């Protein structure tokens, strides 16, 4: 088998490649393409995503801020344009829509100036959709500093001076997550976090009222933005996770009877 493959396949990688990698890539590319085609070229309904529990907490937090008449702050974190930042901005679109509807102020501290125009257009769009373009306040999207601690101390200033009622931390955070969550909890704000850096998630779970776990950020952004491509990609990944779970289960059952057939098939070299 390997000899046949090594004719046109790279010899050193052919022996190492193994059938599993080729089958994996081709089948995954097919599944992704099918979902992408379904999302873009057809009007078929997209699969229904499980409602992530953190989304109810967002509505509750905005409601609480409206009753107290105090602002909400939405922080998109430490990385410039990345998958996590774009997913966070999709969630911010929903939050901006709700705060515009209830006439509650939304303050967005920014760390990277290239993200500022995307945030401004997202919030303005939300105000227009709600039919209140005049209530849009561009200077509530504030570029503070690209330096980590300059940005963090700027955010702390906003939490304390503006006496925010709710703080939302979405995107990708590094060590400033802990400082922002502590300041928010001392200020008595209701806090919701949804970020992908696994090293920061434990601290946010301990300090925030509700925390989305890792990939739930992408699901929340797809669920809220109703973006067909994002939903399609999640469906493709889920399909493949199920296939891998199936392979693991079959493998375990086979190994219970003493056969390592599945592991050998997956052996790459």
């Amino acid at each position, binding site marked *: 088998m390997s000899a046949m493959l090594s004719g046109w396949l790279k010899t050193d*990688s052919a022996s*190492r*490649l193994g059938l*599993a*990698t080729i089958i*994996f*890539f081709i089948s995954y590319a097919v599944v992704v393409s099918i979902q992408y085609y379904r999302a873009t070229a057809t009007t078929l309904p997209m*699969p*229904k*995503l*499980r409602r*992530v529990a953190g989304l109810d907490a967002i509505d509750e937090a905005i409601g609480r801020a409206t009753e107290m008449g105090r602002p909400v702050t939405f922080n998109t974190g430490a990385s410039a344009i990345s998958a996590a930042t774009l997913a966070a901005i999709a969630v911010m679109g929903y939050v901006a829509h709700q705060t515009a509807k209830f006439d509650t102020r939304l303050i967005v501290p920014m760390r990277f100036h290239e993200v500022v125009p995307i945030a401004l257009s997202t919030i303005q769009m939300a105000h227009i959709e709600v039919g209140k373009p005049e209530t849009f306040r561009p200077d509530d999207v504030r570029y503070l500093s690209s*330096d980590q*601690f*300059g940005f963090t*101390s700027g955010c702390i200033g906003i939490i304390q001076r503006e006496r925010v009622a709710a703080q939302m931390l979405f995107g990708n955070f590094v060590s400033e997550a802990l400082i922002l969550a502590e300041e928010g909890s001392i200020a008595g704000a209701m806090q919701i976090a949804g970020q992908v850096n*696994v*090293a920061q*998630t*434990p*601290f946010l*779970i*301990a300090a925030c009222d509700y925390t989305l*776990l*890792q*990939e739930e950020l992408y*699901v929340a952004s797809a669920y809220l933005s109703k973006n067909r491509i994002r*939903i399609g990609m*999640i*469906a493709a990944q*889920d399909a493949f*996770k*199920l296939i*891998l*779970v199936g*392979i*693991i*289960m079959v*493998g*375990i059952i086979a*190994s*219970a009877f*003493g056969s*390592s057939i*599945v*592991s050998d098939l*997956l*052996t*790459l070299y």
Partner: protein
Amino acid sequence: MITVPDSVVAALQPLHVWLGALATLGMLSLLYRENPFYRFCEYTYVGSAGAHTLVTTFANTIKPGIQTQMIQNGQWWEILPICLGLLIYFQPVKRYSWLSRLPMGYWVGYNAGYALTMRTAMPMLTEVRRSILPPIVITSSGFDLMASINNIVFCTTVVLVMVYFIFSREVLKGRAAVLMNVSRVLIMMALGVGFGNGAITRVSLLIGRLDYLFADWLGIY
């Protein structure tokens, strides 16, 4: 190139530890209150970090590239990637900022191609393969209970957590839905390990600073 006489540098040596200690105390002063001494140190840090990135990249990547690849080996075609890289500086210029997308497109495409080779698949498929562990472990000295329990816990956690992160279809229906809560507790336990390790890292870094102040600067021990 200007060379600095060793005598000058030798004279600065005792100043070395004092400068480091003042920098450390300046940063620690933020704990009391935001103050000008802290801001002075913070701006020094940001300025020297920016310069260090520039100097190191020039000294270790750009200069050797010109000396060896272009002058010595005659690879003058490298002018093309140099120009491609220089296009990034059009980013702040409004009218020509689209030019800065050319290098970005090139890097994103290259890394996409790089990721879609066997390099990404192999570690993931190896970890899937190593998640297949026998639930009943028979060793030379008979049935190994502890190893069997370990394997069962490990495989169950992998499967349950993978299923938890499936959102577009309901995998665990009806009574099995209680397993979703089990997998959420398992995730919380894993994040507890992350909390513990994160705390230890932060304490270690503080000990490093206190050790510098007490041992290197004050010489207490």
